[in-house]
């Protein structure tokens, strides 16, 4: 039941036009090898859901540079001028989402909740066009769940079943995205025998991981 798959084969399963969640925060904890392979295989018209687009030439920034992205859902693009340039030029449709709301919307998608009720964004431009509900006298936005065709995840350690452990701030959006992708491709620094990761240390359960990409060479 090993989930280990060659990088090129795993990425080949992603069609043009797919919706991808990509873990990472300013490139920390992003699936570097999977991203490079997406660029190498020349994927087009992707919708990317991610916290940010890192910097120009770095991680998700490489997909932006390659013109592979037609739609982006993110909380922050301020450190990548190329993303802003393509947004202003109308090449990428960008939906900006408060970071905590983005995390909860992904979590809602992965855990079968109908949406997120949050005070964040109430009375701001983020609320435009969104329904609100009153609960015990307070107003909350109804934010919709997010799901993806593929979740592209980076872990520190994996076992062959696909159980994953993360490290420090390289964790960020990866665990929630692993739950919200119809197909999950995870890359890991290290793959260890099944049973090496104690049950209390497993952060993403292998049963939801479809393909595991080992470090090359």
């Amino acid at each position, binding site marked *: 039941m090993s989930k280990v798959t060659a990088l090129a084969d795993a990425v080949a399963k992603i069609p043009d036009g797919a919706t991808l969640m990509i873990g990472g*925060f*300013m*490139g*920390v*904890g992003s699936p570097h090898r999977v991203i490079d392979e997406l660029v190498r295989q020349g994927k087009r018209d992707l919708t990317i859901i991610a*916290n*940010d687009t890192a910097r120009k030439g770095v991680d998700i920034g490489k997909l932006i540079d390659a013109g592979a992205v037609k739609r982006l859902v*993110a*909380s*922050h*693009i*301020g*450190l990548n001028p190329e993303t*802003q340039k393509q*947004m202003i030029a109308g090449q990428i449709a960008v939906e*900006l989402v*408060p*970071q*905590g*709301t*983005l*995390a*909860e919307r*992904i*979590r809602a998608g992965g855990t079968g909740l109908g949406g997120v009720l*949050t*005070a*964040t*964004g*109430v*009375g*701001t*431009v*983020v609320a435009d066009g969104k329904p609100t509900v009153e609960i015990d006298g307070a107003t909350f936005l109804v934010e919709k769940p997010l799901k993806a065709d593929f979740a592209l995840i980076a872990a*520190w350690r994996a076992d062959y079943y696909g159980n994953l452990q*993360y*490290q*420090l*701030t*390289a*964790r*960020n*959006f*990866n*665990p*929630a995205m692993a739950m919200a992708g119809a197909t999950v491709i995870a890359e890991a620094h290290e793959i260890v025998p099944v049973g090496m990761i104690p049950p209390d240390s497993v952060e993403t359960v292998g049963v939801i991981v479809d393909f595991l990409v080992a470090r090359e060479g």
Partner: protein
Amino acid sequence: MDEKTLIAKRVALELVDGNLVNLGIGLPTMVATFLPAGIKVFFQSENGLIGLQPLPEPGTASESLTDAGGSPVSFIPGAAAFDSVASFGFIRGGHLDVTVLGGLQVDEGGQLANWMVPGKMVPGMGGAMDLVTGAKKVIVAMTHTAKGAPKILKKCDLPLTSVRRVSLIVTEMAVIEPTAEGLVLRETAPGVTVAEVVAATQATLIIPDHVPEMAIA
């Protein structure tokens, strides 16, 4: 003392022993340097860490550990790492005692705009909307004016970060507390007169009989 140091030193006096504190990128980050002696606070980095501290020496960085700006950091003994969902759970759930953020504008209602200048700068709100909406105490640390123009206005004309009234505004000229009655001038900086603060402020200030000088060393 330059104006940023002054602001950071004054903000540091607001922190209480045991507080959980989030510092925004830039000026707010400097606050950590000026903690009063005997005060121990826990710094949160919204990308997934409580117990952040600066890198103790060069050559000890990890690619799995950065602050929310992507710079390498370290952690104190007793630190904890978690994912983005949990991180914003602390923020939204009212577990964060203090957040210190920069500001573009604050108005008489104490409402903050700090995330975009339409048509000019659209970096995305990142975690700012959740932080301002959810933290127990919101401190805006900013210069009093921008290129001579007041930033404390009758009404913000930039898009709001939150409709929530912030707790305190600290500038190089003054400490101002937004209240239900309006903006109260609480302190002036050393060598700055009340009249000078009023002149540099578009919003109406409520001036108590006695306005003490900032007590900074």
